[in-house]
Protein backbone atom coordinates (compact mmCIF):
# COMPACT_ATOMS: atom_id res chain seq x y z
CA UNK A 1 0.00 0.00 0.00
CA UNK A 2 3.05 2.26 0.07
CA UNK A 3 2.26 3.28 -3.46
CA UNK A 4 -1.01 4.89 -2.46
CA UNK A 5 0.58 6.96 0.27
CA UNK A 6 3.23 8.34 -2.06
CA UNK A 7 0.50 9.00 -4.58
CA UNK A 8 -1.62 11.17 -2.34
CA UNK A 9 1.14 13.67 -1.64
CA UNK A 10 3.29 15.74 -4.06
CA UNK A 11 0.37 17.59 -5.61
CA UNK A 12 0.66 21.09 -6.95
CA UNK A 13 -2.72 21.94 -8.38
CA UNK A 14 -5.68 19.93 -7.29
CA UNK A 15 -9.40 19.63 -7.46
CA UNK A 16 -11.57 18.40 -4.60
CA UNK A 17 -15.16 18.38 -3.43
CA UNK A 18 -15.29 19.82 0.08
CA UNK A 19 -18.98 19.33 0.76
CA UNK A 20 -22.11 18.12 -0.98
CA UNK A 21 -25.81 18.31 -0.24
CA UNK A 22 -28.32 16.28 -2.22
CA UNK A 23 -32.10 16.50 -2.50
CA UNK A 24 -34.35 14.27 -4.58
CA UNK A 25 -31.58 12.67 -6.63
CA UNK A 26 -32.32 8.98 -7.41
CA UNK A 27 -32.78 7.22 -4.02
CA UNK A 28 -30.92 9.98 -2.17
CA UNK A 29 -33.74 12.14 -0.82
CA UNK A 30 -31.75 14.22 1.67
CA UNK A 31 -28.02 13.94 2.22
CA UNK A 32 -25.35 16.28 3.45
CA UNK A 33 -21.71 15.32 3.75
CA UNK A 34 -18.24 16.79 4.11
CA UNK A 35 -15.40 15.00 2.39
CA UNK A 36 -11.72 14.68 3.03
CA UNK A 37 -8.81 15.15 0.66
CA UNK A 38 -7.41 11.79 -0.37
CA UNK A 39 -9.60 8.70 -0.25
CA UNK A 40 -13.33 8.65 0.49
CA UNK A 41 -14.89 5.21 0.68
CA UNK A 42 -18.62 4.57 0.37
CA UNK A 43 -19.32 1.20 1.90
CA UNK A 44 -22.73 -0.40 1.52
CA UNK A 45 -24.86 -3.18 0.06
CA UNK A 46 -26.15 -3.25 -3.51
CA UNK A 47 -28.88 -0.66 -4.20
CA UNK A 48 -27.95 1.22 -1.00
CA UNK A 49 -27.24 4.34 -3.05
CA UNK A 50 -23.44 4.35 -3.04
CA UNK A 51 -23.22 4.37 -6.85
CA UNK A 52 -25.78 7.19 -6.93
CA UNK A 53 -23.47 9.20 -4.68
CA UNK A 54 -20.71 8.95 -7.29
CA UNK A 55 -23.18 9.98 -9.98
CA UNK A 56 -24.25 12.98 -7.86
CA UNK A 57 -20.61 14.05 -7.50
CA UNK A 58 -20.04 13.83 -11.26
CA UNK A 59 -23.29 15.68 -12.00
CA UNK A 60 -22.41 18.41 -9.51
CA UNK A 61 -19.05 19.10 -11.20
CA UNK A 62 -19.95 18.63 -14.88
CA UNK A 63 -23.68 19.24 -15.02
CA UNK A 64 -24.68 15.79 -16.20
CA UNK A 65 -24.46 12.12 -15.38
CA UNK A 66 -21.38 10.16 -16.46
CA UNK A 67 -23.78 7.43 -17.56
CA UNK A 68 -25.45 9.79 -20.05
CA UNK A 69 -28.77 9.36 -18.24
CA UNK A 70 -31.43 12.07 -18.78
CA UNK A 71 -32.37 14.27 -15.82
CA UNK A 72 -35.91 12.90 -15.70
CA UNK A 73 -34.38 9.56 -14.64
CA UNK A 74 -31.99 11.13 -12.11
CA UNK A 75 -35.00 12.70 -10.41
CA UNK A 76 -36.44 10.68 -7.50
CA UNK A 77 -39.85 9.12 -8.24
CA UNK A 78 -41.54 10.93 -5.37
CA UNK A 79 -39.92 14.33 -5.89
CA UNK A 80 -40.59 17.17 -8.31
CA UNK A 81 -37.15 18.72 -8.03
CA UNK A 82 -33.64 17.42 -7.60
CA UNK A 83 -30.99 19.75 -6.29
CA UNK A 84 -27.26 19.22 -5.81
CA UNK A 85 -25.20 21.82 -4.05
CA UNK A 86 -21.55 21.72 -3.17
CA UNK A 87 -18.35 23.49 -2.44
CA UNK A 88 -15.62 22.54 -4.88
CA UNK A 89 -12.02 23.67 -4.84
CA UNK A 90 -9.91 23.80 -7.96
CA UNK A 91 -6.47 25.33 -8.46
CA UNK A 92 -6.65 27.02 -5.06
CA UNK A 93 -10.06 28.65 -5.58
CA UNK A 94 -13.35 27.61 -4.04
CA UNK A 95 -16.57 27.60 -6.04
CA UNK A 96 -20.13 27.14 -4.87
CA UNK A 97 -21.84 24.91 -7.39
CA UNK A 98 -25.50 24.04 -7.80
CA UNK A 99 -27.43 21.87 -10.24
CA UNK A 100 -31.21 21.91 -10.09
CA UNK A 101 -33.81 20.22 -12.24
CA UNK A 102 -37.58 20.43 -12.06
CA UNK A 103 -39.83 17.74 -13.51
CA UNK A 104 -40.88 18.77 -17.00
CA UNK A 105 -38.64 21.85 -16.86
CA UNK A 106 -35.10 22.78 -17.71
CA UNK A 107 -31.94 22.13 -15.77
CA UNK A 108 -30.38 25.13 -14.06
CA UNK A 109 -26.64 25.30 -13.36
CA UNK A 110 -25.17 27.96 -11.10
CA UNK A 111 -21.58 28.83 -10.29
CA UNK A 112 -21.18 31.13 -7.28
CA UNK A 113 -24.88 32.01 -7.53
CA UNK A 114 -24.61 33.09 -11.19
CA UNK A 115 -26.43 31.02 -13.79
CA UNK A 116 -24.01 29.27 -16.12
CA UNK A 117 -23.74 26.69 -18.90
CA UNK A 118 -22.11 23.30 -19.32
CA UNK A 119 -19.13 24.72 -21.21
CA UNK A 120 -18.20 26.91 -18.24
CA UNK A 121 -18.30 23.92 -15.87
CA UNK A 122 -16.11 21.91 -18.23
CA UNK A 123 -13.59 24.74 -18.30
CA UNK A 124 -13.15 24.71 -14.50
CA UNK A 125 -13.66 21.12 -13.42
CA UNK A 126 -12.63 17.68 -14.52
CA UNK A 127 -13.67 14.20 -13.39
CA UNK A 128 -13.10 10.60 -14.45
CA UNK A 129 -15.38 7.79 -13.44
CA UNK A 130 -14.98 4.02 -13.83
CA UNK A 131 -17.48 1.33 -12.99
CA UNK A 132 -19.00 -2.03 -13.88
CA UNK A 133 -21.15 -0.57 -16.70
CA UNK A 134 -17.98 0.48 -18.55
CA UNK A 135 -17.78 -2.88 -20.31
CA UNK A 136 -20.58 -1.49 -22.49
CA UNK A 137 -18.11 0.98 -23.99
CA UNK A 138 -16.60 -2.00 -25.80
CA UNK A 139 -19.55 -4.39 -26.01
CA UNK A 140 -22.53 -2.04 -26.32
CA UNK A 141 -24.04 -0.11 -29.24
CA UNK A 142 -22.11 2.74 -31.00
CA UNK A 143 -24.14 5.41 -29.15
CA UNK A 144 -22.51 4.30 -25.86
CA UNK A 145 -19.06 4.77 -27.40
CA UNK A 146 -19.93 8.23 -28.75
CA UNK A 147 -21.36 9.31 -25.36
CA UNK A 148 -18.18 8.09 -23.62
CA UNK A 149 -16.03 9.89 -26.17
CA UNK A 150 -17.94 13.17 -25.90
CA UNK A 151 -17.90 13.29 -22.09
CA UNK A 152 -14.11 12.99 -21.91
CA UNK A 153 -13.18 14.85 -25.08
CA UNK A 154 -15.23 17.80 -23.77
CA UNK A 155 -12.91 17.87 -20.77
CA UNK A 156 -9.78 17.43 -22.89
CA UNK A 157 -10.28 19.96 -25.69
CA UNK A 158 -11.56 23.42 -24.82
CA UNK A 159 -14.38 24.45 -27.17
CA UNK A 160 -15.20 20.88 -28.21
CA UNK A 161 -18.47 20.95 -26.27
CA UNK A 162 -19.49 24.29 -27.83
CA UNK A 163 -18.76 23.02 -31.34
CA UNK A 164 -20.53 19.71 -30.70
CA UNK A 165 -23.60 21.55 -29.37
CA UNK A 166 -23.71 23.74 -32.51
CA UNK A 167 -23.33 20.64 -34.67
CA UNK A 168 -26.20 18.91 -32.87
CA UNK A 169 -28.44 21.95 -33.22
CA UNK A 170 -27.77 22.20 -36.96
CA UNK A 171 -28.35 18.44 -37.20
CA UNK A 172 -31.74 18.52 -35.48
CA UNK A 173 -32.79 21.44 -37.72
CA UNK A 174 -31.74 19.53 -40.84
CA UNK A 175 -33.56 16.40 -39.63
CA UNK A 176 -36.69 18.47 -38.95
CA UNK A 177 -36.44 19.96 -42.46
CA UNK A 178 -36.18 16.45 -43.95
CA UNK A 179 -39.14 15.20 -41.90
CA UNK A 180 -41.30 18.16 -42.94
CA UNK A 181 -40.09 17.95 -46.55
CA UNK A 182 -38.56 21.42 -46.36
CA UNK A 183 -35.26 22.39 -47.98
CA UNK A 184 -32.48 21.07 -45.67
CA UNK A 185 -29.62 22.69 -47.60
CA UNK A 186 -29.38 26.03 -45.69
CA UNK A 187 -28.19 24.05 -42.66
CA UNK A 188 -25.59 22.01 -44.53
CA UNK A 189 -22.69 24.51 -44.60
CA UNK A 190 -22.76 24.57 -40.78
CA UNK A 191 -23.05 20.79 -40.54
CA UNK A 192 -19.89 20.64 -42.62
CA UNK A 193 -17.97 23.35 -40.69
CA UNK A 194 -18.85 22.08 -37.21
CA UNK A 195 -18.89 18.41 -38.24
CA UNK A 196 -15.33 18.62 -39.62
CA UNK A 197 -14.09 20.19 -36.38
CA UNK A 198 -15.81 17.54 -34.28
CA UNK A 199 -14.28 14.76 -36.38
CA UNK A 200 -10.82 16.28 -36.34
CA UNK A 201 -10.90 16.60 -32.54
CA UNK A 202 -12.19 13.04 -32.16
CA UNK A 203 -9.50 11.64 -34.40
CA UNK A 204 -6.69 13.38 -32.51
CA UNK A 205 -8.03 12.40 -29.10
CA UNK A 206 -8.63 8.77 -30.06
CA UNK A 207 -5.20 8.33 -31.57
CA UNK A 208 -3.51 9.50 -28.34
CA UNK A 209 -5.98 7.53 -26.23
CA UNK A 210 -5.38 4.36 -28.24
CA UNK A 211 -1.65 4.59 -27.79
CA UNK A 212 -1.73 5.16 -24.03
CA UNK A 213 -4.60 2.78 -23.27
CA UNK A 214 -2.94 -0.08 -25.11
CA UNK A 215 0.15 0.28 -22.88
CA UNK A 216 -1.96 0.11 -19.70
CA UNK A 217 -3.92 -2.80 -21.07
CA UNK A 218 -0.75 -4.71 -21.90
CA UNK A 219 0.36 -4.35 -18.26
CA UNK A 220 -2.97 -5.08 -16.56
CA UNK A 221 -3.87 -8.06 -18.73
CA UNK A 222 -0.32 -9.48 -18.79
CA UNK A 223 0.43 -9.05 -22.44
CA UNK A 224 -2.88 -8.68 -24.28
CA UNK A 225 -3.16 -6.24 -27.20
CA UNK A 226 -5.78 -3.48 -27.17
CA UNK A 227 -6.33 -1.63 -30.44
CA UNK A 228 -8.65 1.32 -30.96
CA UNK A 229 -9.73 2.66 -34.36
CA UNK A 230 -11.75 5.71 -35.30
CA UNK A 231 -14.31 4.76 -37.99
CA UNK A 232 -16.33 7.68 -39.29
CA UNK A 233 -18.90 7.13 -42.03
CA UNK A 234 -16.54 8.53 -44.64
CA UNK A 235 -14.69 6.78 -47.42
CA UNK A 236 -10.97 6.97 -48.19
CA UNK A 237 -10.00 8.65 -44.93
CA UNK A 238 -6.30 8.98 -44.43
CA UNK A 239 -4.88 8.95 -40.93
CA UNK A 240 -3.71 12.54 -40.90
CA UNK A 241 -6.77 14.28 -42.28
CA UNK A 242 -6.91 17.99 -41.48
CA UNK A 243 -10.06 19.97 -40.64
CA UNK A 244 -10.17 21.05 -44.31
CA UNK A 245 -9.76 17.43 -45.36
CA UNK A 246 -12.78 16.43 -43.28
CA UNK A 247 -14.75 19.34 -44.74
CA UNK A 248 -14.08 18.16 -48.28
CA UNK A 249 -14.98 14.55 -47.46
CA UNK A 250 -18.19 15.59 -45.68
CA UNK A 251 -19.18 17.89 -48.55
CA UNK A 252 -18.71 15.03 -51.03
CA UNK A 253 -20.64 12.53 -48.97
CA UNK A 254 -23.52 14.90 -48.26
CA UNK A 255 -24.08 15.58 -51.94
CA UNK A 256 -23.85 11.85 -52.74
CA UNK A 257 -26.39 10.99 -50.07
CA UNK A 258 -28.88 13.81 -50.72
CA UNK A 259 -31.50 11.59 -52.41
CA UNK A 260 -31.25 8.81 -49.85
CA UNK A 261 -31.52 11.31 -46.99
CA UNK A 262 -34.67 12.78 -48.47
CA UNK A 263 -36.10 9.28 -48.92
CA UNK A 264 -35.49 8.16 -45.32
CA UNK A 265 -36.07 11.72 -43.94
CA UNK A 266 -32.95 11.51 -41.81
CA UNK A 267 -29.37 12.82 -41.95
CA UNK A 268 -27.13 9.88 -42.79
CA UNK A 269 -23.74 11.59 -43.08
CA UNK A 270 -21.76 13.13 -40.23
CA UNK A 271 -20.07 12.51 -36.88
CA UNK A 272 -23.40 11.59 -35.24
CA UNK A 273 -22.92 8.25 -37.03
CA UNK A 274 -19.25 7.78 -36.04
CA UNK A 275 -18.05 4.45 -34.74
CA UNK A 276 -15.03 3.47 -32.67
CA UNK A 277 -13.79 -0.07 -33.17
CA UNK A 278 -11.98 -1.85 -30.33
CA UNK A 279 -9.93 -5.00 -30.81
CA UNK A 280 -8.86 -7.08 -27.83
CA UNK A 281 -6.29 -9.83 -28.32
CA UNK A 282 -6.64 -9.51 -32.10
CA UNK A 283 -10.46 -9.83 -32.22
CA UNK A 284 -13.23 -7.24 -32.39
CA UNK A 285 -14.30 -6.68 -28.77
CA UNK A 286 -17.93 -6.08 -29.62
CA UNK A 287 -18.50 -9.53 -31.06
CA UNK A 288 -15.66 -11.63 -29.63
CA UNK A 289 -14.66 -9.98 -26.33
CA UNK A 290 -15.45 -11.73 -23.06
CA UNK A 291 -17.03 -9.78 -20.20
CA UNK A 292 -13.74 -9.82 -18.29
CA UNK A 293 -11.73 -8.65 -21.32
CA UNK A 294 -14.13 -5.77 -21.93
CA UNK A 295 -14.01 -4.69 -18.29
CA UNK A 296 -10.22 -4.77 -18.15
CA UNK A 297 -9.99 -2.88 -21.44
CA UNK A 298 -12.45 -0.29 -20.10
CA UNK A 299 -10.28 0.22 -17.00
CA UNK A 300 -7.25 0.69 -19.27
CA UNK A 301 -9.20 3.34 -21.20
CA UNK A 302 -10.16 5.19 -18.03
CA UNK A 303 -6.59 5.02 -16.71
CA UNK A 304 -5.33 6.49 -19.98
CA UNK A 305 -7.95 9.24 -19.93
CA UNK A 306 -7.16 10.03 -16.29
CA UNK A 307 -3.48 10.57 -17.15
CA UNK A 308 -4.24 12.49 -20.36
CA UNK A 309 -6.57 14.87 -18.51
CA UNK A 310 -4.14 15.22 -15.62
CA UNK A 311 -1.42 16.34 -18.02
CA UNK A 312 -3.65 18.52 -20.19
CA UNK A 313 -5.52 20.31 -17.39
CA UNK A 314 -2.52 20.66 -15.07
CA UNK A 315 -4.32 18.94 -12.21
CA UNK A 316 -5.58 15.47 -11.43
CA UNK A 317 -9.28 14.99 -12.24
CA UNK A 318 -11.71 14.02 -9.51
CA UNK A 319 -11.55 10.23 -9.48
CA UNK A 320 -14.73 8.16 -9.03
CA UNK A 321 -14.30 4.38 -8.89
CA UNK A 322 -17.43 2.27 -8.60
CA UNK A 323 -16.91 -1.35 -7.47
CA UNK A 324 -13.71 -1.44 -9.47
CA UNK A 325 -11.99 -3.52 -6.83
CA UNK A 326 -14.79 -6.07 -6.40
CA UNK A 327 -12.98 -8.85 -8.19
CA UNK A 328 -9.45 -7.94 -7.15
CA UNK A 329 -7.40 -9.09 -4.17
CA UNK A 330 -5.66 -6.60 -1.91
CA UNK A 331 -2.40 -6.56 -3.87
CA UNK A 332 -4.07 -5.97 -7.21
CA UNK A 333 -6.25 -3.30 -5.65
CA UNK A 334 -3.12 -1.56 -4.42
CA UNK A 335 -1.53 -1.89 -7.87
CA UNK A 336 -4.57 -0.36 -9.54
CA UNK A 337 -4.85 2.53 -7.09
CA UNK A 338 -1.14 3.05 -7.65
CA UNK A 339 -1.72 3.18 -11.42
CA UNK A 340 -4.12 6.08 -10.81
CA UNK A 341 -1.18 7.81 -9.17
CA UNK A 342 -1.17 11.42 -8.08
CA UNK A 343 -4.90 11.80 -7.56
CA UNK A 344 -5.94 14.59 -5.26
CA UNK A 345 -9.30 13.11 -4.31
CA UNK A 346 -10.65 9.64 -4.85
CA UNK A 347 -14.21 8.50 -4.20
CA UNK A 348 -14.75 4.74 -4.31
CA UNK A 349 -17.56 2.35 -3.51
CA UNK A 350 -17.29 -1.13 -2.11
CA UNK A 351 -19.74 -3.79 -0.93
CA UNK A 352 -17.16 -5.43 1.33
CA UNK A 353 -15.54 -3.81 4.33
CA UNK A 354 -12.53 -1.92 2.91
CA UNK A 355 -9.00 -2.95 3.93
CA UNK A 356 -7.71 -1.14 7.00
CA UNK A 357 -4.76 0.41 5.13
CA UNK A 358 -7.08 2.09 2.65
CA UNK A 359 -9.29 3.41 5.46
CA UNK A 360 -6.29 5.06 7.09
CA UNK A 361 -5.77 7.25 4.02
CA UNK A 362 -9.05 8.99 4.28
CA UNK A 363 -12.58 8.55 5.35
CA UNK A 364 -15.04 5.72 5.28
CA UNK A 365 -18.80 6.23 5.04
CA UNK A 366 -21.52 3.64 5.43
CA UNK A 367 -24.37 4.02 2.93
CA UNK A 368 -27.71 2.44 3.89
CA UNK A 369 -31.07 2.96 2.22
CA UNK A 370 -30.11 6.26 0.64
CA UNK A 371 -28.54 7.66 3.80
CA UNK A 372 -24.93 8.19 4.69
CA UNK A 373 -23.12 7.98 8.02
CA UNK A 374 -19.54 8.45 9.10
CA UNK A 375 -17.74 5.20 9.78
CA UNK A 376 -14.53 6.75 11.12
Amino acid sequence: MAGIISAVFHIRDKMRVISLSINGFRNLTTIRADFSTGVNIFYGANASGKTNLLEALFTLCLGRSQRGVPDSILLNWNCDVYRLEGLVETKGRQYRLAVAFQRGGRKKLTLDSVQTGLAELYSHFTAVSAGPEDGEILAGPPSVRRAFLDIYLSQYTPNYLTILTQYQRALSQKNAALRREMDPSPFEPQLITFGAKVMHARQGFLSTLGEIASRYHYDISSGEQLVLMYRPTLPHMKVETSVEGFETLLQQRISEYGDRERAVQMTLVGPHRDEIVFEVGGYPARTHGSRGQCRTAAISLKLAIYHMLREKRGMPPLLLLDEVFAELDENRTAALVDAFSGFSQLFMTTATLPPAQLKELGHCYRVVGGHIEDLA
Partner: protein
Amino acid sequence: MFNSAESVERLVNWLARLPGIGRKTATRLAFHILKLPAEEALELADIIRDVKEKVSFCSVCCNISETDPCHTCTDPKRRKDIICVVEEPMDAAALDKVDEFNGLFHVLGGRLSPLDGIGPDDLKIKELLARLNDKISEVIIATNPQVEGEATATYLARLIKPMGIKVTRIARGLPVGADLEYADSVTLTRALEGRQEF
Protein backbone atom coordinates in the same frame (compact mmCIF):
# COMPACT_ATOMS: atom_id res chain seq x y z
CA MET B 1 -53.82 29.20 -5.97
CA PHE B 2 -55.62 30.17 -2.76
CA ASN B 3 -59.16 31.42 -2.58
CA SER B 4 -58.82 34.60 -4.64
CA ALA B 5 -61.13 36.34 -7.06
CA GLU B 6 -61.58 34.70 -10.42
CA SER B 7 -60.46 37.79 -12.37
CA VAL B 8 -57.16 37.91 -10.44
CA GLU B 9 -56.54 34.32 -11.32
CA ARG B 10 -57.29 35.07 -14.96
CA LEU B 11 -54.73 37.91 -14.85
CA VAL B 12 -52.11 35.63 -13.29
CA ASN B 13 -52.72 32.96 -15.92
CA TRP B 14 -52.44 35.51 -18.67
CA LEU B 15 -49.23 37.13 -17.36
CA ALA B 16 -47.65 33.71 -16.89
CA ARG B 17 -47.90 33.21 -20.69
CA LEU B 18 -45.54 36.15 -21.32
CA PRO B 19 -41.97 35.18 -22.27
CA GLY B 20 -39.61 34.94 -19.29
CA ILE B 21 -42.41 35.18 -16.71
CA GLY B 22 -43.02 32.20 -14.47
CA ARG B 23 -46.05 31.62 -12.25
CA LYS B 24 -44.38 33.15 -9.22
CA THR B 25 -43.52 36.41 -10.99
CA ALA B 26 -46.95 36.48 -12.65
CA THR B 27 -48.61 36.27 -9.24
CA ARG B 28 -46.42 39.07 -7.91
CA LEU B 29 -47.21 41.28 -10.92
CA ALA B 30 -50.93 40.58 -10.70
CA PHE B 31 -51.07 41.63 -7.06
CA HIS B 32 -48.97 44.68 -7.84
CA ILE B 33 -51.47 45.71 -10.55
CA LEU B 34 -54.32 45.03 -8.13
CA LYS B 35 -52.81 47.46 -5.61
CA LEU B 36 -52.21 50.26 -8.17
CA PRO B 37 -54.49 53.34 -8.14
CA ALA B 38 -57.29 52.81 -10.65
CA GLU B 39 -56.04 55.48 -13.09
CA GLU B 40 -52.56 53.92 -13.30
CA ALA B 41 -53.89 50.45 -13.92
CA LEU B 42 -56.24 51.76 -16.61
CA GLU B 43 -53.37 53.69 -18.21
CA LEU B 44 -51.62 50.35 -18.72
CA ALA B 45 -54.78 48.98 -20.31
CA ASP B 46 -54.90 52.03 -22.64
CA ILE B 47 -51.26 51.67 -23.65
CA ILE B 48 -51.85 48.04 -24.56
CA ARG B 49 -54.91 49.04 -26.61
CA ASP B 50 -52.94 51.80 -28.41
CA VAL B 51 -50.15 49.41 -29.27
CA LYS B 52 -52.59 47.05 -30.89
CA GLU B 53 -54.73 49.71 -32.61
CA LYS B 54 -52.10 52.17 -33.81
CA VAL B 55 -49.03 50.06 -34.51
CA SER B 56 -49.02 47.92 -37.57
CA PHE B 57 -46.42 46.97 -40.14
CA CYS B 58 -44.68 49.05 -42.80
CA SER B 59 -45.63 47.53 -46.16
CA VAL B 60 -42.11 48.20 -47.50
CA CYS B 61 -39.66 47.09 -44.82
CA CYS B 62 -42.09 45.04 -42.68
CA ASN B 63 -40.90 46.77 -39.51
CA ILE B 64 -43.43 47.86 -36.89
CA SER B 65 -44.69 51.39 -37.49
CA GLU B 66 -47.54 53.81 -36.79
CA THR B 67 -47.38 55.08 -40.40
CA ASP B 68 -47.16 53.29 -43.72
CA PRO B 69 -44.54 53.54 -45.13
CA CYS B 70 -42.58 54.00 -41.89
CA HIS B 71 -40.43 57.02 -41.00
CA THR B 72 -37.23 55.10 -41.76
CA CYS B 73 -38.34 54.18 -45.27
CA THR B 74 -39.34 57.80 -46.05
CA ASP B 75 -36.41 59.54 -44.31
CA PRO B 76 -34.67 61.65 -47.07
CA LYS B 77 -31.35 61.65 -45.14
CA ARG B 78 -30.95 57.89 -45.42
CA ARG B 79 -29.04 56.00 -48.09
CA LYS B 80 -31.57 54.15 -50.19
CA ASP B 81 -29.10 51.79 -51.83
CA ILE B 82 -28.21 49.70 -48.76
CA ILE B 83 -30.64 47.33 -47.06
CA CYS B 84 -29.83 45.69 -43.79
CA VAL B 85 -31.82 42.46 -43.24
CA VAL B 86 -32.67 41.57 -39.64
CA GLU B 87 -34.85 38.99 -37.89
CA GLU B 88 -36.96 41.14 -35.59
CA PRO B 89 -37.92 44.83 -35.08
CA MET B 90 -35.76 44.85 -31.92
CA ASP B 91 -32.66 43.99 -33.99
CA ALA B 92 -33.38 46.92 -36.33
CA ALA B 93 -33.74 49.21 -33.30
CA ALA B 94 -30.36 48.05 -31.93
CA LEU B 95 -28.58 48.56 -35.27
CA ASP B 96 -30.25 51.92 -35.82
CA LYS B 97 -28.37 53.27 -32.79
CA VAL B 98 -25.06 52.59 -34.56
CA ASP B 99 -23.89 55.84 -36.23
CA GLU B 100 -21.99 53.99 -38.97
CA PHE B 101 -25.20 52.64 -40.42
CA ASN B 102 -27.42 55.02 -42.36
CA GLY B 103 -29.26 52.74 -44.75
CA LEU B 104 -32.66 51.03 -44.81
CA PHE B 105 -33.88 47.94 -42.98
CA HIS B 106 -35.85 44.86 -43.84
CA VAL B 107 -37.44 42.85 -41.03
CA LEU B 108 -37.93 39.15 -41.80
CA GLY B 109 -40.15 38.49 -38.81
CA GLY B 110 -38.15 35.44 -37.72
CA ARG B 111 -35.60 32.97 -39.01
CA LEU B 112 -35.55 29.57 -40.63
CA SER B 113 -36.32 26.93 -38.03
CA PRO B 114 -37.78 23.68 -39.37
CA LEU B 115 -38.04 22.43 -35.76
CA ASP B 116 -40.66 25.13 -35.20
CA GLY B 117 -42.15 24.60 -38.62
CA ILE B 118 -40.76 27.90 -39.93
CA GLY B 119 -39.70 27.78 -43.57
CA PRO B 120 -38.90 30.50 -46.15
CA ASP B 121 -42.60 31.10 -46.86
CA ASP B 122 -43.20 32.07 -43.24
CA LEU B 123 -40.66 34.94 -43.46
CA LYS B 124 -40.96 38.28 -45.28
CA ILE B 125 -38.65 37.13 -48.06
CA LYS B 126 -40.97 37.79 -51.02
CA GLU B 127 -41.28 41.38 -49.74
CA LEU B 128 -37.48 41.67 -49.61
CA LEU B 129 -37.03 40.38 -53.16
CA ALA B 130 -39.65 42.88 -54.37
CA ARG B 131 -37.42 45.70 -53.08
CA LEU B 132 -34.30 44.57 -54.92
CA ASN B 133 -33.55 46.40 -58.14
CA ASP B 134 -30.52 47.93 -59.86
CA LYS B 135 -30.57 50.89 -57.46
CA ILE B 136 -29.60 48.58 -54.57
CA SER B 137 -25.82 48.32 -54.20
CA GLU B 138 -25.59 46.11 -51.11
CA VAL B 139 -27.67 43.83 -48.93
CA ILE B 140 -26.23 43.36 -45.44
CA ILE B 141 -27.50 40.23 -43.73
CA ALA B 142 -27.60 40.84 -39.99
CA THR B 143 -29.46 37.78 -38.75
CA ASN B 144 -28.33 36.48 -35.33
CA PRO B 145 -25.08 34.50 -35.22
CA GLN B 146 -26.79 31.26 -34.18
CA VAL B 147 -27.36 28.11 -36.19
CA GLU B 148 -30.78 29.28 -37.44
CA GLY B 149 -29.62 32.83 -38.19
CA GLU B 150 -26.65 31.51 -40.15
CA ALA B 151 -28.89 29.14 -42.14
CA THR B 152 -31.21 32.05 -42.94
CA ALA B 153 -28.20 34.08 -44.13
CA THR B 154 -27.05 31.18 -46.31
CA TYR B 155 -30.51 30.87 -47.82
CA LEU B 156 -30.81 34.61 -48.59
CA ALA B 157 -27.30 34.86 -50.05
CA ARG B 158 -28.01 31.99 -52.46
CA LEU B 159 -31.17 33.80 -53.54
CA ILE B 160 -29.80 37.34 -53.89
CA LYS B 161 -26.25 36.85 -55.21
CA PRO B 162 -27.35 35.56 -58.64
CA MET B 163 -29.20 38.89 -59.06
CA GLY B 164 -25.80 40.60 -59.24
CA ILE B 165 -26.20 42.46 -55.93
CA LYS B 166 -23.37 42.53 -53.41
CA VAL B 167 -24.38 40.45 -50.35
CA THR B 168 -22.47 40.79 -47.08
CA ARG B 169 -22.73 39.15 -43.67
CA ILE B 170 -22.00 41.03 -40.45
CA ALA B 171 -18.83 39.81 -38.73
CA ARG B 172 -19.00 37.22 -35.98
CA GLY B 173 -17.80 39.78 -33.48
CA LEU B 174 -20.64 38.66 -31.28
CA PRO B 175 -20.07 35.78 -28.92
CA VAL B 176 -21.65 32.55 -30.18
CA GLY B 177 -25.25 32.39 -29.03
CA ALA B 178 -25.48 36.13 -28.30
CA ASP B 179 -28.47 38.06 -29.57
CA LEU B 180 -28.17 41.28 -31.56
CA GLU B 181 -30.74 43.06 -29.45
CA TYR B 182 -28.57 42.74 -26.33
CA ALA B 183 -25.26 43.67 -27.97
CA ASP B 184 -23.77 47.09 -27.20
CA SER B 185 -23.14 49.71 -29.90
CA VAL B 186 -19.36 49.20 -29.93
CA THR B 187 -19.76 45.48 -30.63
CA LEU B 188 -22.39 46.16 -33.29
CA THR B 189 -20.22 48.82 -34.95
CA ARG B 190 -17.35 46.34 -35.13
CA ALA B 191 -19.66 43.63 -36.48
CA LEU B 192 -20.89 45.99 -39.20
CA GLU B 193 -17.43 47.30 -40.11
CA GLY B 194 -16.05 43.77 -40.32
CA ARG B 195 -18.81 42.50 -42.61
CA GLN B 196 -17.69 40.14 -45.36
CA GLU B 197 -18.93 39.41 -48.81
CA PHE B 198 -20.55 36.02 -49.38
